[in-house]
């Protein structure tokens, strides 16, 4: 493998080591090497937000970060945050309000929403809209997503 690099990182609480191509994106690493297919590839140029994952507590675009850059990092995906139930309230609100249709944007949307919930108390609808405005959803028109996030932030 040309330009291969050994990396070790913690993904959803489990330490993994792999030899990866230097050019491999983090989202491709998660999907192809680890089988964590919940993070989706939508545009591969950092616009749509479908590949949003959490690295060292901050949300990042999995298509704009290389796997080697995550060496030594703590990475969390929708699968892990579902299993720890960190996303449970959001997922319940999304489900009850049908804040997803095809579901392709949903993992990224949930991570962006959770980022807001962790960083802000009682954001306005406008602030919610701004915070998720880097996550593209073609199905819903966003209103139900805003409603669901608002519901969770209102406790």
């Amino acid at each position: 493998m040309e330009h291969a690099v050994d990396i070790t990182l913690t993904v959803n609480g489990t330490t993994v080591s792999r030899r990866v191509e230097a050019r491999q994106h983090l989202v491709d690493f998660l999907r192809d090497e680890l089988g964590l297919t919940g993070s989706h590839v939508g545009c591969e140029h950092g616009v749509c937000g479908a590949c949003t994952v959490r690295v060292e507590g901050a949300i990042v675009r999995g298509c704009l970060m290389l796997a080697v850059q995550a060496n030594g990092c703590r990475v969390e995906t929708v699968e892990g945050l579902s299993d720890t139930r960190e996303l449970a309230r959001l997922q319940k609100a999304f489900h009850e309000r049908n804040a997803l249709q095809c579901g392709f944007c949903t993992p990224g949307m949930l991570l962006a929403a959770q980022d807001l919930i962790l960083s802000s108390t009682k954001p306005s609808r406008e602030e919610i809209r701004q915070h998720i405005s880097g996550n593209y959803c073609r199905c819903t028109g966003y209103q139900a997503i805003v409603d669901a996030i608002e519901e969770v932030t209102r406790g």
Partner: protein
Amino acid sequence: MGKAELPLHAPGTKTDRGYIGQSVPRPNAARLLQGRGAFVDDLRFPRLSHVVFFRSPYAHARIKQLEFKKARIAKGVIGVFSGREISEFCTPWVAVLGHLKGIKSPPQYAVAIDRACWQGEAVAAVVAETRAQAEDAAALIEADWEELPAVTDMEASLQGTEVIHKELGDNICFARRHDTGGVDEAFAQADAVVEETYGFGRHTGVCLEGRSILADYNAAEHSLTVYHSTQAPHMMQDIFSRHLGIPEASVRVIAKDVGGSYGIKVHVYPDEMATAALSVMLRRPVKFVADRLESFLTDIHAREHKVRIRIAVKKSGEILAFDLDDLTAIGPYSVYPRTSGIEGNQVVNLTGGPYKHQKYRGKLNVVFTNKNVTCQYRAVGHPIAVALTEGIVDKAAAALKMDPAEFRRRNLIPDDAYPYTFPSGVKFEQLSHHKCLDLLLEKMNYRKMREEQIQLRKKNIYRGIGLAAMIEVTNPSPAFYGVGGARISAQDGATLRLEPTGMVTVLCSVTEQGQGTEAVLAQIAASAVGVSLEKIRVITGDTGVTPYGGGTWASRGAGIGGEAVLQAGRALLSNILEIASRILSVEKETLALESDFIVNKLTRERKMPLEELGRVAYFRPDTLPMNFQSELTVTRHYTPREYGFTFTNGIQASYVEVDTDTGFVKLLKHWCVEDSGTVINPMLVDEQLRGGVAQGIGAALFEECLYSPEGQMLNGNMADYLVPMAGEMPDIVCAHIETPTRQSQLGAKGVGEAGTAGAPGAVMNAINDALSPFQASVTTMPFTPERILKALGKCP
């Protein structure tokens, strides 16, 4: 019919509606929320190979030579193939329909041979062990091109100085003339004649999941299993079978989770056909996932139209006639198998649709160009027809100095005039334009908004209110495609099976792409049989297991698939009660099934849990009478026949503020009142409307596939092609009138098109209303700040 047989809201009956009309959350959404969906690219197969296509950089060019030497020896490469090699395994197609008289298109190959006709057309395929390796190798293909003149302007195409396909004689794919007669006389009698030319930007669906296909050929069986992000598995089964030469029943198409479709994924794409052919050629699974740049260049585009429309009105406000001249460009090929003539045809069918005028003339020319192909995208033709109609109606109202809502009230077809034949020839069973208009004006507090608008203008705040009444095609009969010779099923089927534990498995040929199809089918099944919702499991999207059918498009899932489930559910209930009567030794007519229990129909006394009936029927049939055989799996089908389409109707309103210094439009609020017949799940219906409105707003304000005069797409990425994001979208108020169709017992009409159909016209009218103090208006979508400033004379 007895009460137990009528748990549903059918016209003219008073019944318990069961789960019909309840906003239950979608059972199948849970896996998507936890990242446990199964989209095509999530599947893992042994010996899976990946195909990448080498695409034409030119809009029109002859392929003089393709040199594969370097690509073939690149790391991980399994094979590199030309169009000619692939054509030996996949026959070409011609997309025409018998009922679109005169429509023509040349044969199209899976991978182009000799000539590329648009930028992005695949001319070679590289298969490798990984996608990255295939992309590396594709970059090593050397191509020698001879550029040919590119026809990119539709008016130039119509003139035909350069003919794209010489063998066709001209660039006209399809033309239609419709005339009721008396149009010129009507215009001569008019008190006012208003005319306008509207332009519509070519745009596309931008499904977040790119087109995806994984074809797995089994050489031992000569069988093909295709995991496909598609709306129409059976249609694709037929097409793979015929073009690859594999017996139909040996082709299985499976659509697991589909990441957005909106009509984009109901067509035959040459690169997807090539992927299937390559699996046969290489005797191993091959996967193709369109990346975002490929999606912009090759997913069908839609709605590039330029239309002149005239309206003749009396002083009283009465519309006498519409006169339409539509020119649309579809790229170099009519798209298989639906053709690219349908969108323009719909514009002719639907323009003027809500109104009671009797004279109508429509002219349509559909021309070839050297841009990406266009075909049916959500609300096919409707956004054009509605915007034209509603734009010119507003202009006529202004010419008569009449309030636009009042002008519509005077012209909308009366609610008691049905059944009604519209001058374009389409027939309406029962619409509710006036009820919808009244409800809309009440919901938005129209009068108060008008007063507020006047006050704000004094403060140099320019707000506009735009209305758009609409009709929408839903539940198409065989008249849409089948009569034209397309092997596209207008009927759908449902199989219901009682499981021994009292659960019910539903297998249905309509498909789920996020609309909530499976949830709605579960609600209908639970209501029809009399079991609780959690006892239902729904399976769709697999030609190997479901009955045959058309899939989900044209707002047909609930109306057609749902009716099949209802009929099957009633039949299953009857069979269950038959068994219950044998077990309990009572007359069948005295029994009913409620909430998973066999009950006495009159007293509601619980006689037996359904689970016990299942146990007896499956494991102890020896205890049943000797000549009795239980039948706990039933299948029923449904085809709408009486009308060509089950039309729905509705009306939208947009409220905007235009910044007359920057040209920016702020969407303040949006309303949609829709009559989609029986509402099965109000929450899902509202979300269909909202999502549809968002796509219509995209067309009105942001979205356009921009091409250079040479046919190069200029904004084929998500940074440059703008789509509505959360920050731009307003809250959308939805409300409903329910006029169930009498064609089916379920009464559902469909709701997928409505939002997209009406939103562009409503937003256009709102912007022009805001601009009216300046005697300015915009007529070419998308309404960018630049176009608005130009209209205001503030920008050259």
